[in-house]
């Protein structure tokens, strides 16, 4: 089998088949997008599935584990819960456990977090001068856990070349393989 067989495959297709392949590819991309956006609506979270990127919650979560999040507005934040939050000036959201909660009568809440595997709380990670997190910082709360399922994301993060190789391979595969 030659390595450029797929080009012959494309050459042998007629116009109609080519359109079909391209449309097929578009279907895959758009259904993935629909599932993601649909999950956003159901869970109320802007990022319903996250991959654990650091070891700060070991031994509960390791790098590459998958978490399902929800973020319903009426759900209160309580200690012991695992929240995913964003800090100003940091791109990557953090997955840590709530250590302290102070909630006022009107529902405004301030809370402090800590990683299970860290020896101190997260005040050193927060923005300069920030002592507490608020509800607006929360991306979601961890509701379910699946081990190893996000390992490909970790590989793609650590080796960007691997990411482009995978994307190129998948794209070609979908475009050239006939049903």
């Amino acid at each position, binding site marked *: *089998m030659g390595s450029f067989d797929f080009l012959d495959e494309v050459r042998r297709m007629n116009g109609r088949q080519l359109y079909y392949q391209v449309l097929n590819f578009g279907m895959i991309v758009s259904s993935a997008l629909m599932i993601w956006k649909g999950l956003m609506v159901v869970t109320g979270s802007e990022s319903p599935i996250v991959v654990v990127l650091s070891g700060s919650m070991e*031994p*509960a*979560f390791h790098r590459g584990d998958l978490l399902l999040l929800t973020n319903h507005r009426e759900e209160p934040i*309580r*200690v*012991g*819960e*695992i929240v995913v939050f964003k800090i100003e000036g940091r791109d990557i959201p953090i997955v840590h*456990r709530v*250590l*302290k*909660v*102070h*909630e*006022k*009568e009107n529902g405004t809440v*301030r809370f402090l977090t800590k990683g*299970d595997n860290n020896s101190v*709380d997260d*005040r050193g990670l927060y923005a300069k001068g920030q*002592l507490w997190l608020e509800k607006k910082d929360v991306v979601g709360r*961890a*509701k*379910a*856990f*699946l*081990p190893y399922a996000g390992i490909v994301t970790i590989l793609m993060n650590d080796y960007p070349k691997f990411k482009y190789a995978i994307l190129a391979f998948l794209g070609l595969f979908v475009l050239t393989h006939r049903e």
Partner: protein
Amino acid sequence: MNSFTSRLNSLFAFTLSVMAALTFCCFLTTVFNDHIRPVELNVAKVLVKNVPDYSADRERSDLGLITFDLSTDLQPIFNWNVKQLFLYLTAEYKTSEHALNQVVLWDKIVERGDNTILDLKNAHTKYYFWDFGNGLKGNSNVTLTLSWNVIPNAGTLPKVQGSGSHKIVFPDQYTSGRI
């Protein structure tokens, strides 16, 4: 059609679906467990000081100083879909400023295979019991409870409160000086 790579591909896809189905069945077998266990809690020393909180805003805040006794056996919670328990001792109370305060005083990770019988006497807290303000002096309704977050091999992450609590009554006077 029957090339080596296509056989490898279908073998991989089939393995993945079988593993996903088995994981889901494993999750289904444990989804209805309530994970509740009795816990005996008691406090020995109860003091309150009013000192600047240098870990936060440097304002003078109430700092509770307690030692506690705890005994429970968590063995029955462990089944084939429990990887780890994250235990945390929570103090919950109300102050004039905040309708709900929750402060984690102590926590512990119990992994599968670890000793599940806990019997602490006169134990010190792991974290400082800082109030947000001055709401501990004379506070006679601070409830101490032990809860745990069940970390499965795959599945939901239930947060369970052990049955049994202890009410702490803080003294009306601040303790000054070293203890």
